[in-house]
């Protein structure tokens, strides 16, 4: 299988008022093309920091991060921006849709930034709108959509440049259970039908139970890795069991 993400020995500390607080302590992980991986762990375990380093928003103290063949830690800011528009897709907890643009225009935006030809852009956007069942709201503005619809638009936007890797930060964090389900279905659709590779940071055990693998972080280290081999319900029980251990351990 083609390696899409390769993280090894990643270390990161924050210095506040003269004190050093280690956040990541030698994290290593890998992702293959088409995989859906969830990163879980208690607050402060380093999940979001890991995501921010992988996306190039944050630098690391040491270690290596490769997205495809690109070394994210040793690339200049301009180049990182190019990488973000070319091979990464983002999904945020707050959706981060631009309120002044319609659904269709929001999906256009990453393609415009990546300077895609207009004809390709139109076609790709139409396909994504259909694929996520949101073609009927394509002319609406984010303010007119429900939380679940907004997140589906955000996923469609993240997929619009056919990125190697989609990074999702608590994508179900602000949603009710119905909308959360819709979002997870959208992820599964993206993975199965469009071959997308998804790295999702989440607190939501139900959402994580749909992933192929769950990487558990605690105190900045990978403490366990759960691979889904069983039914979803049983997998979720395993995740909850694991989370209990981590909480008690803390």
């Amino acid at each position, binding site marked *: 299988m083609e390696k899409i993400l390769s993280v090894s020995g990643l270390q990161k500390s924050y210095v506040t008022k003269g004190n050093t607080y280690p956040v990541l302590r030698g994290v290593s992980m890998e992702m293959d093309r088409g995989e859906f991986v969830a990163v879980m762990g208690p607050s402060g375990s380093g999940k*979001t920091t890991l995501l*921010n380093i992988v*996306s190039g*928003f*944050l630098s690391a103290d040491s270690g290596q991060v490769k997205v495809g063949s690109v070394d994210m830690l040793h690339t200049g*800011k*301009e180049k990182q*921006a*190019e*990488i*973000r*528009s*070319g091979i*990464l897709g*983002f999904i*945020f*907890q*707050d959706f*981060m*849709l*631009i*309120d*002044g*643009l319609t659904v269709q*225009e929001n999906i*256009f*935006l*990453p393609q*415009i*930034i*990546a300077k895609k030809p*207009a004809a390709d*852009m139109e076609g790709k956007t139409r396909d994504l709108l259909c694929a996520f069942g949101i073609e009927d709201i394509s002319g609406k503005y984010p303010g007119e959509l429900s939380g679940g619809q907004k997140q589906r638009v955000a996923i469609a936007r993240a997929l619009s440049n056919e990125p190697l890797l989609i990074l999702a*930060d608590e994508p179900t964090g602000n949603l009710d259970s119905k909308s959360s389900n819709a979002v997870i279905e959208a992820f599964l659709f993206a993975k199965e039908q469009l071959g997308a590779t998804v790295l999702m940071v989440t607190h939501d055990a139900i959402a994580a139970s749909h992933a192929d693998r769950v990487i558990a972080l605690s105190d900045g280290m990978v403490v366990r890795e759960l691979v889904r081999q069983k039914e979803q319900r049983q997998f979720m029980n395993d995740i909850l069991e694991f989370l209990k251990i981590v909480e008690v351990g803390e």
Partner: protein
Amino acid sequence: MTLNEITRKLIRQNKSRYILFGLSICFAVAMAGAYGVLLFSRVITDVLMTDGSTYLISLGMYGITMIGIVVFLFYANAIYIQLQMREIGVYLSLGLPSKSVGKIQNRQLDITFLIGGAAGLVLAVPFSFGIWSLLSLFISYTDGAFRVGEKGLLIAGGLWILAWVILRIRNAVHIARLDVIRILRSSSECEELKAAHPLLGIIGLTAVPLGLILFNITAVIYPLKNFSVLFLGVSLIGMYILTAQITSMGSIVKRFFPNAYRKSILFYNLVRQKGNQYTLSLFVSSLLITLTVFSICFNGSIFLELYYAIKEEPYDYAVLAGASGEKLDENRIRSFAEESGISLSEWHSLDMLLLGREHQYMDASRNEWSPEMVVNVSDFNALSGMNLSVPDDGYSYFQDSDDSMFQTCSEDRGLFYNPCIKEDFTLQRIELVSKESVLNETAKINSFAVVSDNTFYRISDTLDSSYKMTYYLFHGSNTENSSEFQKGLLAEIAAINKGEIFVSWQDQVIKDKMGSYEDIYIPYDGNELYAARWWEFYPYAKQTELDVQMEAGAVYLILIFFIAIISFVSATMIMGLKIAGTIMQDTESYKRAMYLGLKENDLKKIIRKQIGLIYFFPVICGCVTASFMINRFMEASSATRILEITLVAIGLSLIVFLIQLILFFFLQKKLVLSTSGIIYESR
């Protein structure tokens, strides 16, 4: 679809934020321009002498208000950028390089600045005209034609361009250094003040009055006079320290009132976190409010003092009559008085000569020639009731004043110049004489050299008539007819002078001593106010002088009111924008507190307290400082109406406070409701 089309659409969609920012720019440029257009207009410079202290004060106020306007624009820009932040964050996260994002933002800033600033410049002139029309209601001595002070437009244009360039650079640097994660996660900023300590706050609190007291003390001690302004600096620094430390007030409350601290722990911590952010806005708005109250009172006091000085003058009329041509003598003056139904009494006359005299200093390079009036000792003794004796080779110098210190630094040898025989001659200075109420202090002639009768007539014989005058001082009945009598005299004097004002009349006596000299004549018509204020031959009538001075005072005060209003509005807008920014920024903290069980009413209280702090600290600090400052300034300038002016300052402070209180209730109601609505409805 292209990025340009997206940007254009976003501008259309978010037009309210561009309009709001554009209006802020328009307001700033229009206000700076309108005041400048008026301040540098000839109609105003005619009223206010351009090198006089009143004019310098109004220039100083203009300068400080410009700083306030720039700070206001900075806050307007901060709010504008905060509203743009979501778009900026999305662009950056989708891989648009920060340089390109900066370019997009700067293009939008350019358009907003261009339209807002140009509209401001265009509006400055009609706005200025509107204010001039209001001022004209108080003016009867000028021709009243509005003239644009181009310098004001240039300054407003300069301010516009300067703010544009600075904000352009600032925004580009800000975007280049942006923490994308913070935007994407909507994190709030935390800028706790470094070196925060309650002791510093106490030092600041003490330094403000202490600096003013020391200014007052040193301003009246001659050798320390030059240093007195440094103590104003101490007050200013004190105000800054106090402002900077106000955000750490929680530490003092925590130490002495732990229960009260615990009750409002969220409020004190939210305030503490914004130490750096609050300092500039609180300091500048405090300074602007101080300026508002102080400038109105200080300038009002100048004219109040003048009003009383004129009222207490010893003579109702003073007329200087030249000896050349058709002479305006006692009989003619009396006949004009009779025509107006005025009977004259206490008649005094002083024969005068116009000579040149060298003013000599310890540093001889600073010596300079100037015109000097000379009278004979008999006339002087008859007028003053004194018994002055002057030898033939000497002179005494008289000034209508209670200040016996005048001219004591002069190293005067008494070198005079006779312009007709073109000869220098020396008279030994005998003494300096000062006495109040001998002459009219506010009239054009209130000091001269006194020589012996022999010397006076000996010099007089060598001078031609253009250097000889008689000065008449007298009382008159029926003050209600004073204006008519004065107008009759003025018409006669204007006719004698062929309808012209000989501006360089006094300087002609020393033209041989000056590097460059030319006779300057201006027509009387169209320069009535100039004549009333500066022409030596303008007949003095106490009643009219009151009107003229009060007219100038009214013009000046309204001008000061205008800049004070700009200053006040700028301060209020700085505070308003800071409040809006703060509440926006604290939404996340409020949400977290809500999850921890904070009730809606308690949240409203916290928001109200924050708004109250930003709103009332500058108002109270500014008003108290200004009232105390005006009191000390009056004391230092030996004013006679200190209590009245201090009471006016306190009254004005109360009005400022009241206006702010009304604005506060309106603003807090709107902000508290909208913020608690956002937080509690988003659950």
